């Protein structure tokens, strides 16, 4: 029998300090997440210097909780893993320095992991992945279609040319008077409203797999401003439903285009926006309509946002490949696949 692998993993790329213990890249023994949302809500969005300061306040306490909850000691661990990009450089550095220090102090191998790969591999914590599989990565910082050909081998098929989808939610949320992060509330309002404004679906006619959300965001804002000027009362629920309707059409159009080019057995939807109920519903229906024999994998809500367990999941693949880093690891804020 193969020996179990236990990885202590760190994630601090944005406004969550998270430390986890993951067994064999599959089983979460602990996944401590300290979120700073309440702090950044004061400013209407994440302030990098404030985020870095909070990470320093939280990091050792999170390590302690993660080890205690997993009921393991340093002797039980096989490696330490950390997100080294993409993300906010000042935030990334705290997780990186803490992870390097633990690896150094206890003589453990160090693994540097890609945050985006982590999001995709959050699926590994809830399903048995079959290669190749397709991933739709949707979050505040990213909107990508990624084909995963083999363990840890990624090919980006499509990317956003401007805003990330989660970013667009936050920007139109501000117009609706919703505090950051706006995604959840817009999703809830959308469920109550109707798509009556017919906002543009950018690039859906184009035969590529890229996204654009800035035009949609602008039409939304223009529509609201115009209504303000002529004292027209618009239903916020209808506005939300119309915005979300356009977003879902764009996402659905591009992901099924990708699936047509690369038929696979599994579609993973990951990242913060994967928590969106409208998106979950829509993709389920689309697969049914198209009669596709394909498993749709949405990680549970807790694993959609940033968390260290997903880093433990991708790090296991790197561990198996002996893809280790040294103590000179630095942050790479604009890392891609």
């Amino acid at each position: 029998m193969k020996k179990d692998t236990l990885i202590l993993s760190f994630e601090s790329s944005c406004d969550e300090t998270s430390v986890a213990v993951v067994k064999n890249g599959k089983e979460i023994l602990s996944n401590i997440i300290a979120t700073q949302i309440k702090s950044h809500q004061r400013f209407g969005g994440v302030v990098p210097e404030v985020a870095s300061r909070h990470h320093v306040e939280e990091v050792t306490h999170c390590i302690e909780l993660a080890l205690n909850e997993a009921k393991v000691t340093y002797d039980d661990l096989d490696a330490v893993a950390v997100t080294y990009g993409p993300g906010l450089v000042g935030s990334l550095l705290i997780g990186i320095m803490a992870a390097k220090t633990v690896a150094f102090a206890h003589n453990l191998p160090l693994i540097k992991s890609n945050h985006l790969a982590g999001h995709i591999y959050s699926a590994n914590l809830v399903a048995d992945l079959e290669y190749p599989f397709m991933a739709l990565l949707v979050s505040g910082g990213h909107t990508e279609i990624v084909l995963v050909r083999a363990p840890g081998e990624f090919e980006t098929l499509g990317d956003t040319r401007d805003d990330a989808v989660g970013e667009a939610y936050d920007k139109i949320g501000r117009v609706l008077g919703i505090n950051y992060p706006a995604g959840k509330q817009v999703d809830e309002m959308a469920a109550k409203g109707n798509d009556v404004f017919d906002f543009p679906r950018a690039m859906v006619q184009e035969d590529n797999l890229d996204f654009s959300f800035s035009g949609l965001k602008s039409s939304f804002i223009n529509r609201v401003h115009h209504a303000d000027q002529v004292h027209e009362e618009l239903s916020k629920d209808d506005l939300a439903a119309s915005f979300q309707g356009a977003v879902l059409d764009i996402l659905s159009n591009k992901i099924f285009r990708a699936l047509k080019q690369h038929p696979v057995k599994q579609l993973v939807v990951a990242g913060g926006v994967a928590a969106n109920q409208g998106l979950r519903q829509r993709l389920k229906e689309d697969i049914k309509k198209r009669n596709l024999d394909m498993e749709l994998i949405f990680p549970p809500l807790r694993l959609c946002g940033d968390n260290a367990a997903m880093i433990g999941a991708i790090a296991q693949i790197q561990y198996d490949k002996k893809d280790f880093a040294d103590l000179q690891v630095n942050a790479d804020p604009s890392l891609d696949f």
Partner: protein
Amino acid sequence: MKILAFDTSNKPLAVAVVSDGNVLATLESTEKKTHSVTLLPDIQKVLTESNLVINDIDLIAVAKGPGSYTGVRIAVTVAKTLAFTLKKNLVGVSSLEVLAADGDESKILVPLMDARNDNAFAGVYQMHSGELVNLIEDHHTSMAKLLDLLKKYDSEKLEFINATDNLTDLIKKEYPEAVILNAKDSLPKAGKLAKIAERKPVISDVDSFVPTYLRLTQAEHDWYEKGHKKDGNISYVEEV
């Protein structure tokens, strides 16, 4: 007692291992290197040179700021994680005090960190029978205010440490007779940091140990300016 001391609060990096008052190994770099890349390998180097392993260390001494926000965070994160993970004692020392420790014993020492736009982080120290005494607490100040504050001292006794070219010009106008050590000649000495740390209380709550920034972030400053107040009960970071 064996002490591992390090300071990355500004451009230079200083690391040392000190055992019962003797510096076993020290490493100083003035070149602009990336502290996040070099700090742990440099700690490893001084330990190896001292024929020690990290577990032999009894006390971690760190320069906790003020200084470059990123720089002090790197050192403080490594220090608190080491202390936490190996259950070692931890002491934080003012980065300005570390600079003052290398000053002239007969002078009134004014260590500085340039905070741009004619501002600085500054403190005032004096050596008394081998120990630094803090005369004016470390604070963030405009240079004009600081230079005014220093009028109560004999200007010929003043020694400014770690003055950038801009700060040097400002000081010279007010105190042409003062000694001014340029930033290039004002390197923190980790050996001296270790020595200061021996006299300071050990930090009892490692988890809450954070850098001494001496300044709010711009965003928080603006938020308070708008009349907001921190609700005493609110916790801005929550476990979820």
